[in-house]
């Protein structure tokens, strides 16, 4: 795993905190630990692939509370929950709310490392996608209103002739607008363009 990622650990027990940090450090992971949810939530999280290892039972806000608060703030950081005892209803709730894993203490080291790896990969993928979508959106925004209109019709499967008739212009005009838009969007083909538009319009549909 790359050093450009970071794992946040929240546990109110100092020895558990430091032991998790030690364990994760053996595979080269960078770890930052917190004793409570409040300190974590007040922190501006760095813009690198990261994940959260959270104890369910915490003073003040519980792990589940943190999950909810982050979701409300639209912070999409993957969460791995730790619990001192097998609390099944709580684990079901946490997993439904999108947790990566729910581990009962004491857990197998490999289970935590696997979960952290999955979480970081997921976050990295999400970030990469986010970057791509942002870029596409920027390109899309650089189109004129008419060009956006033409592209939308093209992607929906309409022919140049149909578009011209729909817009009340010449077919040659549509062709010019189409090639200009393709160029601005850096699309190689119509299929390529269709994929780009899909990414811009529906990012949430495929998210974890």
């Amino acid at each position: 795993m790359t050093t450009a990622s970071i794992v946040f650990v929240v546990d109110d027990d100092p020895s558990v905190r430091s032991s998790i940090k030690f364990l994760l450090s053996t595979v080269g992971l960078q770890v930052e630990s917190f004793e409570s949810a409040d300190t974590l939530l007040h922190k501006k999280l760095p813009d690198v692939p990261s994940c959260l290892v959270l104890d369910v039972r915490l003073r003040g806000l519980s792990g589940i509370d943190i999950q909810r608060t982050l979701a409300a703030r639209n912070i999409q950081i993957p969460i791995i929950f730790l619990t001192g005892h097998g609390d099944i209803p709580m684990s079901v709730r946490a997993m439904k709310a999108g947790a990566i894993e729910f581990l009962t203490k004491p857990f197998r080291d490999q289970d935590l490392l696997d979960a952290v790896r999955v979480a970081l990969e997921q976050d990295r993928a999400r970030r990469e996608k986010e970057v791509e979508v942002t870029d596409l959106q920027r390109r899309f925004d650089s189109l004129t209103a008419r060009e956006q209109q033409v592209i939308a019709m093209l992607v929906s499967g309409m022919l140049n002739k149909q578009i011209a008739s729909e817009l009340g212009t010449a077919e040659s005009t549509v062709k010019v607008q189409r090639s200009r838009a393709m160029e601005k969007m850096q699309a190689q083909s119509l299929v390529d363009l269709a994929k780009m538009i899909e990414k811009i319009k529906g990012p949430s549909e495929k998210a974890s």
Partner: protein
Amino acid sequence: MTSERHPAQTDREREESALRYSEQNYRLVVETAPDAVISIDESGAILFANPATARIFGYDPTELIGKPLTILMPEFLRKLHENGFSRYLATGQRHINWQGTELTGLRKHGQEFPVEISFGELSRDGHKVFTGFIRDISERKQAEEMRAAHARQIAVRADVSIAFGKEESLKTILGECSEAIVRHLDAAFARIWTLSDDGKMLELQASAGMYTHLGGPHSEIPMGQFKIGMIAQERKPHLTNDVLNDPRISNRAWAEKEGMASFAGYPLSVGDRTIGVLAMFSRKQLTPDTTETLASGADLIAQGIERKRAQEALQMTQAELARVSRLTTMGELAASIAHEVNQPLTAVTNNSNACLRLLAADNLKPEVLRRALEEIVADGNRASAIVTRIRGFIKKDPAEKNRVDINDVIQEVLALADRELYENRVRLERQLTKALPLVFADRVQMQQVLLNLIMNGIEAMIAVTDERSLWVESRVDESGDILVAVRDSGTGLGSGADRIFTPFFTTKASGMGMGLSISRSLVENHGGRLWAAPNFPIGAVFSFTLPVSAGSPA
């Protein structure tokens, strides 16, 4: 009287007259004395005996003249007397006190009786004459003996009562009872058996005197067998002053060798049930006083055993109930305890695994290993301390009272409840008075009472959304007892206030309704009180008191 002196009398005549008068006077005293007055010569032959001799010894004074003095003594004293007497004549050394010596006399018809003698000597014509006063002290002795017997009986009963008043095991108490019998009734040894629950076996519980071991062939005697088993079965005492010829005494050779004279065995009965046997062997004869004392002692011991057993049964039920209630409390605490134990275990596992990984990669630096091991040791100790605390709390042992600092108990319980307080966001305030006098208490039971009150307090605050506060206070109250109070800002006592100490009354969904009722009986068993009152402005306060242990610095 000297006024009758005649002027014509010569000095000699006057002397003779005076002498005659003196002799008559002595004769009168001797003839009318209530004690026997006897004179002997140097050969020990009786020269003179007064009339009282006849009343005391049964001999006519005249028939004693010329007889040896030893005729008035029992066989065992004769040689002693002869030796002492001849030694005195030869050396002038007295072998007994001449004034007020207690000896044994022998009446003409053979009865021995206690006498007190005083005697003196005078010389006549170079020969010594001894004259003695012999007083029959039978009645005095009898009265003394009666007083002593009465005192012995009182002493046995008192010692038995004292023994049963102690908070000791039944075995220890019966040991003291058998010691009292040996001590006061001059027994060679005394033993107490109790009947087993199934009524088949008599089990030796105590043995005092020359044998004190409880093992061996006498430790268990089947009902109905041997003299002890028969006493229990027949429910009748067995008494003998002739152990050598008693058919029930099986070990005759032993009895003869040890010089045993008597045996007394009494059934220990309560109503129409036999619950054991009390028995003693003695080298002396049994007297009616001894057997009477034994019979009354046996009654007292039987009643004591019965009472003690009832008490023990009650205590065991209470102890078991208390333990079940402790387990229930532990069940309620289970989640937070699991978490608390798992924390250090998690740290240990993580640190170990991390080291193994570094080792596999050949990258484990000694400094890193040392730090990890130190943490592993610390966490191991932490887990073990938690387990010890829990184990101590749920142990089954019956009450074990020691001198305890109640503040220590409070701290231990707050450690157990720490996670529960923490997760329920309860603010804890300790108001502990330092250097409190110690109390004499069972630590585990006091932990239980406190934990129960604290858990109740937390529970009462679950519905409270404002600040949840719990105050734990310790101090000396107005009457000098130790007072512990647990105050909460919860929903208060409400309408069930008068029923909260009733068994099985509960307002909780998962509660057994035993906590407060058991806590109250545990506190009362310690001589204290437990009560509830409203707290102001909201919540409830539960307080209990414990008497200060004797000898504690005030």
